[in-house]
């Protein structure tokens, strides 16, 4: 069994014979993931537990304490919250990554951006875990997939670009201002509540229409949910706007990283 897995892995590597860089990013993120869960006894089970417990709490609180006017509310929350969890995790790991990978950055020359790509990929592994929980939920609820699901990766890619950009910017700022960590927790808390994760999107955005455009996550959450839950055609204007937003942030992130990174190891 193990040999078979290794054989498969070897085949996988041979697809990219010359891409040492891809191998490196994959190894970095794989070990990241291992370190995160290997220290605990239940291991990978925690990766499933955390989002499940979280959604259960929200579901109970919001559907019993507040009046609910959204059908399939559990699925509604979950489809929003997995996007949110990805953003939260990858942006927070951007704050840590230089400190965590210092032992490599300090001693060996390689493309420094690789550690960021790896941390984005690590969060993507947890995202895939969450998606599998979502599929499980879909089967229980009896939701049948539609061909519109092919649009879903478009929004996930948008999310990845956005998270990478935000992570780069945060990591640059954290070199100079350690307080950014606490500040970012505050911002995340705020963002969590202004995003259409629990609420019907009309409720917030009819009150504050500008929030839809000021907040880069809102469009991604709305579109991906429309596709996944309602089988609707996505709002293409909102999607284009989301991509534009994310690319601008990524470019700022790459620029700031290039300009200020050398200070990072000196100061960490």
């Amino acid at each position, binding site marked *: 069994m193990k040999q078979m897995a290794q054989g498969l892995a070897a085949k996988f590597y041979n697809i990219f014979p010359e891409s040492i860089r891809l191998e490196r990013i994959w*190894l970095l993120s794989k070990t990241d993931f291992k370190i995160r869960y290997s220290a605990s006894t239940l291991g990978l089970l925690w990766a499933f537990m955390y989002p499940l417990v979280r959604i259960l709490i929200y579901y109970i609180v919001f559907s019993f304490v507040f009046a609910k006017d959204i059908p399939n509310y559990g699925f509604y929350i979950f489809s929003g919250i997995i996007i949110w969890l990805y953003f939260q995790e990858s942006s927070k790991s951007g704050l840590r990554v230089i400190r965590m990978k210092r032992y490599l950055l300090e*001693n*060996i*020359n390689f493309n420094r951006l690789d550690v960021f790509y790896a941390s984005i990929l690590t969060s993507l592994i947890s995202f895939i875990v969450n998606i599998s929980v979502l599929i499980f939920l879909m089967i229980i609820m009896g939701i049948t997939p539609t061909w519109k699901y092919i649009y879903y990766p478009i929004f996930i890619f948008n999310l990845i670009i956005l998270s990478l950009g935000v992570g780069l910017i945060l990591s640059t700022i954290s070199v100079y201002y350690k307080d950014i960590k606490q500040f970012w927790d505050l911002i995340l808390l705020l963002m969590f509540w202004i995003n259409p994760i629990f609420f019907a999107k009309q409720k917030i955005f009819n009150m504050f229409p500008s929030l839809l455009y000021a907040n880069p996550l809102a469009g991604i959450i709305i579109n991906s949910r429309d596709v996944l839950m309602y089988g609707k055609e996505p709002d293409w204007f909102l999607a284009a706007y989301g991509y534009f937003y994310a690319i601008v942030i990524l470019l700022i992130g790459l620029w700031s990283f290039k300009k200020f990174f050398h200070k990072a190891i000196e100061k960490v």
Partner: protein
Amino acid sequence: MMKEDIVIKLENVSKTFTIREKVSGNIFQKSWAVLSGSNRRKIEAVKNINLEVKKGEFLSIVGANGSGKSTLIHLMTGVYRPDKGGKSTIIGSFIRLSLGLGFNAQLTTRENVYLNGSVMGVKISELNKNFKKIIEFAELQKFVNTKIKYFSRGMRTRLAFSVAVHAHADIMLMDEFFGGVGDERFKEKSDKVFNDAFVSGKTIIHVSHSMETIKKYADRVVLLHEGECRGIGSADEIIDLYRSTIKVEKSRRREKKQYDQQQ
């Protein structure tokens, strides 16, 4: 343009650190110190160094503690950027080896070897081939699946050196790396690597207090004193100079002490 056989070049390289010190006093005094910048202090760790290292050379750096040796290594690798006006160039892949660094303590030997090797640009298929050799060189056959955190200093040193040797780094920068590893058998192996270094074109930068190793291998030695380069030359020459600077420093301190006591 650099000449072809030069792999490290430092031109007018200086490094100044700005450190912040904790201010005692009430909250107004503290915030005033932060705003006015009076809690900052500049420390010149390395001053105006010019140096060229050839391919295949074994260069040693000596100097007392705090003379800027480690800073100089960081400047060579580009981890630190030199102050304005200075320029540091390094050509080829390198690895910096220092005590207890370079590994993640939470990972096993196997995982660390693969991770470090891959980061250094070695293909996984090649690592698969060389894995046994790496472990045998480090003499860690019994600890392949053990987490590094249980390792002694000597075991870590052996593993790091083995990975560096087998990953074909062009330049190895050793920052007091072998300090505390007195294992005779392993010493023989590392000696062999040092001897072969010139043949295989490996450049070695070596910071050490071990005059014995320096005398044996160093092609050139650099003496640092309080961040300044006091001399570059052959091992015997510079070691004599180093010993005399220490002596001068000691007698100066003694005189100062006597002077202070008399006052």
